[in-house]
Every structure is written in structure tokens, then in C-alpha cells.
């Protein structure tokens, strides 16, 4: 009888070991929103959540894509069909307008035609004529989007929108809500460069998230130890083209129509997970996505000023062209500097020193 008990105990422990090591992990890799995505979840509810997350991202792409002709956004851009876009898209456009106003236009979803003129949406790169840019810039700005009642949206003639700057962030908000609904306590979500980590790793430690060194593909400028957080990085060091010896990257400054030359090479924005999100509410994931682009356009001085205003709750890591890494003090204990990176590290506090 005791032998039977001991053998049964072994079997139970072995099952437990298997669950901890592999059986508790569910993971899916897929392409969506013009990027690669991975959702990995652990433990109870993981299997359902990973499947639902992929379905949800596909659903959002069908709503928000600018290149799929049947999407709500494409219909809006074409000026055809019903201008009632539904409360979900209306809410996202409303959030985009809010972030555009907050950043004084540094983030702007109406920059789409200018980005296309540079060829970044078609991969046929070119430097547009100034006259073409001037004409397109006349239709850029959140004032050209009119959010009416009952989810009615109207665009001024010549204005087009592209939600690519917040769609993945919004998707990460939605995936977070799914993980919460399914009771998942540990997960890692990478939607392109948009990261969301839920809880801690199964071994109880924080997730280690590397911030890519814009100047050295082999290295990081540092490693963030994160739990329950969103993080997004914007930089112009991978998606670019060169013409006549000059490099042009894909982050366009809505004020000039040219790639932003703000003195920053990378901006990472970090914010805590949403407290009790519902699937259709843009949250911190959306905000991180919008602000990483906006702060890159704004440059160091304005970005720091914006962060210090405290208007929005987030932390950031700025990498400058002159070799500095600026880390806001809320990340001080979460950011591990990279030895030998060659960067000078500085901590930014709320009050100027």
C-alpha cells in the first residue's frame, strides 16, 4: 500500500513538473497588421486566451487596415458608404484626436498621404517634391476629422487617416482584456514592437525586455525588468531608404512632411497595465504606441517637458544621437544599463535639476 502511495506521489509530481516546464505554456506566432506577432500565455486559461487573442487581432485588422479595401477605415478614406463607423472605431479615432492635441500634432493619423508620398506604404521609396508635400500637408491635422454623434465620422476632402500608429497598441489593450477575462496571470505579448507583459514570468521573476541599441544591432541600450506593463519603441534605424547619400526614415514629422530630425534615435514609452479594461476601450497600450511616435518627433526637450507635465502617466527611455540614454526616474529601478554600450546614462526627474 505504501509502495502504491509512493508511486502515485511520483506520478503526481511528474505531472506537475511537466505542467511547469512545458504543458502550461501556450504560444502562437502569426502575421497581422503588417508585422509579426507572438502571444505566449501560461497556466489556467492560456489555451483559450491565445486562440482568442489571434482571432481578436484579425478582427481588428479587418476594421482598421488602410490597405484592405473592405475595412471601415478604407471606406472612410474613400468617402463611400456609411460614415457611421461603429462605437469602437469612433472611440479609437477619439483617442487619436486626444493624443494629437496633447502632443501638439506630433502624433497625427492624418499624415497618411504624406507617408504614402514617400513610398513607405508601398515600399517604392522616393523623396517627394516640396510642392507635392505642401499640397498634402494642407489636409493634415486633427481639425480635418469630424467626430459626430452616433459614431458618425466625416473627413474633409483630401484628408485620409491611417491608424497604423495606434492599431497595434490598441490591439495590445484588447489582448490584455482577453487574458484578464480568461484568468491568465502570466503572459507575454509582442505585436510587432508593441510589448505587453502580464504578471511576472512563471518562475516569479520580472520579464526581461531589451531596448534595442539603434547604433548596434547586436546590443541593447539596456534591459527593462517589467511586470504588468505595456512598452513600445519607435526609431528610424531599420525602416529607411537612402538617396544621394542621405538616409530617410519612416517617421514623418507632420509639421514638415519630412522624416523627423529631432536628435533622437529611439524612444521607448512604458506604462502600467490597464486596471479594468473593456475590449473596446483604448488604454495604456494605445497611449504608449501614440506617444512613442510623438515623442520621437518632438525631440528631447519637448519630450521631457511633456513627461514632466504629468498630464499622462507613463515613463520613457530616450536615446539621443549624441550618445546619451535618458531614463525617467520611474524606471530607475527597472532599467539595467548595458555594460560597454558606450552610452552616457542620465536619469530624468520630475523637477529640472
Amino acid at each position, binding site marked *: 500500500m505504501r*509502495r502504491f502511495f*509512493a*508511486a502515485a506521489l*511520483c506520478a503526481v*509530481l*511528474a505531472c506537475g*513538473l511537466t505542467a*511547469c*516546464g*512545458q504543458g502550461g505554456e501556450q504560444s502562437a*506566432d*502569426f*502575421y497581422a497588421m*503588417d*508585422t*509579426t506577432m507572438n502571444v505566449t500565455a501560461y497556466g489556467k486559461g492560456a489555451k483559450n486566451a491565445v486562440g482568442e487573442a489571434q482571432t481578436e487581432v484579425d478582427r481588428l485588422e479587418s476594421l482598421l487596415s488602410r490597405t484592405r479595401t473592405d475595412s471601415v477605415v478604407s471606406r472612410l478614406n474613400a468617402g463611400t458608404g456609411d460614415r457611421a463607423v461603429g462605437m469602437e472605431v469612433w472611440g479609437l479615432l477619439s483617442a487619436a484626436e486626444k493624443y494629437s492635441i496633447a502632443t501638439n500634432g506630433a502624433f497625427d493619423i492624418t499624415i497618411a498621404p504624406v507617408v504614402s508620398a514617400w513610398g513607405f506604404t508601398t*515600399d*517604392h521609396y522616393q523623396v517627394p517634391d516640396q510642392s507635392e508635400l505642401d499640397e498634402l500637408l494642407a489636409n493634415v491635422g486633427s481639425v480635418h476629422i469630424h467626430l459626430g454623434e452616433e459614431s458618425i465620422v466625416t473627413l474633409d476632402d483630401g484628408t485620409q487617416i491611417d491608424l497604423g500608429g495606434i492599431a497595434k497598441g490598441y490591439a495590445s489593450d484588447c489582448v490584455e482584456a482577453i487574458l484578464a477575462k480568461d484568468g491568465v496571470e502570466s503572459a*507575454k505579448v*509582442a505585436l510587432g*514592437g508593441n*510589448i505587453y*507583459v502580464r504578471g511576472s*514570468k512563471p518562475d516569479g521573476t520580472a*520579464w*526581461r*525586455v*531589451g*531596448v*534595442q541599441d*539603434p547604433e*548596434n*544591432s*547586436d*546590443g*541593447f541600450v539596456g*534591459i*527593462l525588468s517589467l511586470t504588468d506593463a505595456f*512598452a*513600445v*519603441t519607435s*526609431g528610424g*534605424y*531599420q*525602416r*529607411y*531608404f537612402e538617396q544621394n547619400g542621405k538616409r530617410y526614415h519612416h517617421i514623418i514629422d507632420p509639421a514638415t512632411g519630412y522624416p523627423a530630425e529631432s536628435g533622437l534615435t*529611439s524612444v*521607448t514609452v512604458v506604462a502600467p497595465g490597464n486596471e479594468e479594461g473593456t475590449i473596446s476601450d483604448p488604454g495604456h497600450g494605445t497611449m504608449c504606441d501614440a506617444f512613442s511616435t510623438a515623442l520621437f518627433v518632438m525631440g528631447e526637450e519637448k519630450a521631457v517637458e511633456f513627461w514632466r507635465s504629468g498630464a499622462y502617466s507613463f515613463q520613457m527611455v530616450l536615446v539621443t544621437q549624441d550618445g546619451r540614454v535618458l531614463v525617467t526616474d520611474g524606471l530607475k529601478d527597472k532599467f539595467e544599463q548595458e555594460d560597454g554600450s558606450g552610452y552616457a546614462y542620465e536619469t530624468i526627474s520630475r523637477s529640472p535639476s
Partner: protein
Amino acid sequence: MPMKRSPEVRPKPADALVALAVLALAAALALSAWGGGRSGGLTAVISVNGQVTETVNLSRLSGPEVRELNANGYTLHVRLSSDGAEVIDSTCPNQVCVHTGHISRAGQSIVCLPARISVTLSGGAENGVDAVLG
């Protein structure tokens, strides 16, 4: 006075099996705790259209190797070596995979979206990460 051994505690062949099972379980737990699940070396996982097509233990390569990968109308040449991977040329229009450069740490990846080819590193030294921003 010699103590009389109880017949109930005398080892039997079946007890040895249970003891072996416990030892095997202890060894498995120890390996798990020490990271025995790792491959032991830096590994490149090559995926095409989201499906893993090849897993290469880079630490076992005797020298650099170049793989030609074809998918969705594009051709990439990927150089694999013991210290990492890089796309050395690609016929894709945006060249983001080439611009990504050489990667060498677990958690890093190179993605060619037009070709839907990715190379992701795992295992290796303890300086790897769970995810990469950038």
C-alpha cells in the same frame, strides 16, 4: 540483544523500482531548476510563413554557413555563425531585414515581412531577454 527485523520494512524488488522513480524525478527537478530545458547553446529558429522550417544550434557550427531562403517571391541569404545571424542580402523591396543587421542574443530576431521569413535566436548565454523593443 539483536533486534528482530520487521518483515514489513525488508526491501523488496518493487521498492527498488519506487526508489529509482524518486531518484529519476529528483534528477529531472534538478535539471529543470538549473535550466536543463535550454538547448545549451545559441540556437537560430528559422520560420517561413509562421511555420518553423529549420532550427540550427549555432554553437555547433564549425564555421559560418549561408542559407538561401525563398518565400513569397523573394530570396534571402542568411549567414549563420556561432555568434549569431544576419541577412546579408535580400530581394525584398524594403530591406528592413538587411538593415536589422547582425543579431547575437537570445530574444532578438530578424523579420522580413514581404517574404514572411523570420530568424529568431534562443538559448545561449544568460544575457538573453524575453522580448525586444525596437
